[in-house]
């Protein structure tokens, strides 16, 4: 199996009061093309650090991060990133936000317009295309951020707790919307969350991390079929996997069974 993203013995430290703090102490992980992988773990275990290295915003101290077999050397339009804080440009309208990346890619105006419109429709924001972010709810802001990432058509989506600040209802809606678009145009998704239900519902594999030093604790396969439905969410098999993930997140001192 060719891996789309691979982390090889990634170590990342930060200086901390004269000492060094090991945020990631040798993480290895392979993510296949078109795979949907979620990462859960206690806060501070290095989830965001891991993702920002795939995004090219940070570099590992040692080890390597490869995308398509090539070491990551900086951010690029082949990898779309979605942040928890939405990170919309507040002075631009929804449409202008979505066109931002297309302008950078020198897409001609007419084509740009068309692709932006398409991405905005995909997240059901067409009505609000000319609205400023401040007039949108949290869920709508995140949908706009997703459209902005989709518009440049990246092969990889890196999402750092994207639905973490939303209420339960908006979160479930966005999860379904995300899975739906993923089933239409398969991308490789690395999705970070602190919500165990979300991790299991979305992924074909859940990576559970542990802290101090940040490392992979367990990788749990989710043998549930796509498309994921409410029926699946309420099934006993879902609950079983969810309990397994929960236990390995919250009772990490317990001896880990091999997955």
């Amino acid at each position, binding site marked *: 199996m060719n891996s789309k993203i691979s982390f090889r013995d990634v170590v990342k430290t930060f200086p901390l009061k004269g000492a060094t703090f090991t945020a990631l102490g040798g993480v290895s992980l392979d993510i296949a093309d078109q795979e949907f992988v979620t990462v859960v773990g206690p806060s501070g275990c290095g989830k965001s650090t891991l993702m*920002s290295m795939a*995004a*090219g*915003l940070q570099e590992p101290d040692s080890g390597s991060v490869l995308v398509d077999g090539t070491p990551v050397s900086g*951010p*690029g*339009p082949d*990898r*779309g*990133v979605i*942040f928890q*804080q*939405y*990170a*919309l*440009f*507040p*002075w*631009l309208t929804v449409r202008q936000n979505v066109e*931002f*990346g297309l302008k*950078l*890619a020198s897409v001609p105006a007419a084509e740009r317009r068309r692709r932006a419109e398409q991405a905005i429709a995909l997240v059901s924001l067409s009505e609000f295309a000319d609205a*400023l*972010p*401040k*007039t949108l*709810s*949290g*869920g*709508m802001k995140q949908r706009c*951020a997703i459209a*902005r990432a989709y518009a*440049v058509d990246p092969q990889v989506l890196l999402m750092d707790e994207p639905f973490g*600040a*939303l*209420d339960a209802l*908006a979160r479930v809606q966005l999860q379904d919307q995300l899975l739906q678009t993923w089933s239409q145009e398969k991308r490789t998704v690395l999705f970070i969350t602190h919500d165990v239900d979300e991790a299991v519902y979305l992924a074909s594999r859940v990576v559970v991390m542990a802290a101090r030093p940040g490392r992979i604790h367990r990788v749990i396969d989710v043998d549930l079929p796509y498309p994921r439905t409410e029926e699946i969410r309420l099934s006993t098999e879902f609950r079983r996997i969810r309990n397994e993930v929960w236990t390995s997140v919250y009772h990490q001192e317990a001896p880990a069974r091999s997955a």
Partner: protein
Amino acid sequence: MAVITPAEKTATETRQQRPRRSRRRPLVLNAVALAAGVGLWAVVAALGLVEDLPSPTAVAQKAGTMISDGTLASDTWASLRRVFIGYALGVVVAVPVGFLMGWYPMARALIEPYIQFFRTIPPLALIPLAVVLLGIGEVPKIAVIFLASFMACVVSSFQGVIDVDKTLINAARVLGAPDRTIFAKVVVPASTPFILVGMRIGLGASWATVVAAELIGAQEGLGYRMQKASTWFEMDTIFVSLITIGVLGLVMDRLLLLAERRLTGWQERR
């Protein structure tokens, strides 16, 4: 930032309604307060409670003659010209310097000690030095005003760059923006609110400085007119000049406030 749709909806609704009701009432109250103040002034003047205090009507008459003989216009123009030149120069220099300091740590390290030091000196305290170094023409006055507006503006545009949300910069980077695009399309717009606040403070400082600068060797200007009037005990002239200074300062501040509202209307909070 965790906002739930319904809550935000009600927030926008009340936001739309409230200004209409609560903006009119302060205006009425403002007018009442002003009228009461002038009335009190008239009473105090009529009763002679304060020696040499001119009555509102005397001041209004004086204003009429100063308008018709053109002295008010030429004084106002002289003061405004100094302010505009000094202020504009200050802003034009301060904004790039502030950006430079915010963007390049080395520039900050080189410039900041001077900024911090000169910031503690009130611009007015530099007038004697400016007169000695630059004479008593237009140059020293404009130089001091320049310094006043520069100091107010440089700090705020520097702060604006420093305070740009790091995730916005990262969001632009992951969409493929090179540094210069990040600067032009993210840092500049994101720091505009700070710069405009600095510009307002700078304008206030410039206006305060021009009047004081004119107290020293000038041929015309609102400050000069007051200085001259005070030697002849022309209280009404002093009052006309003072009121003109206040009104002009207020008008300029409101114009900038209007520009600020226009340019930074995208902000989440105000």
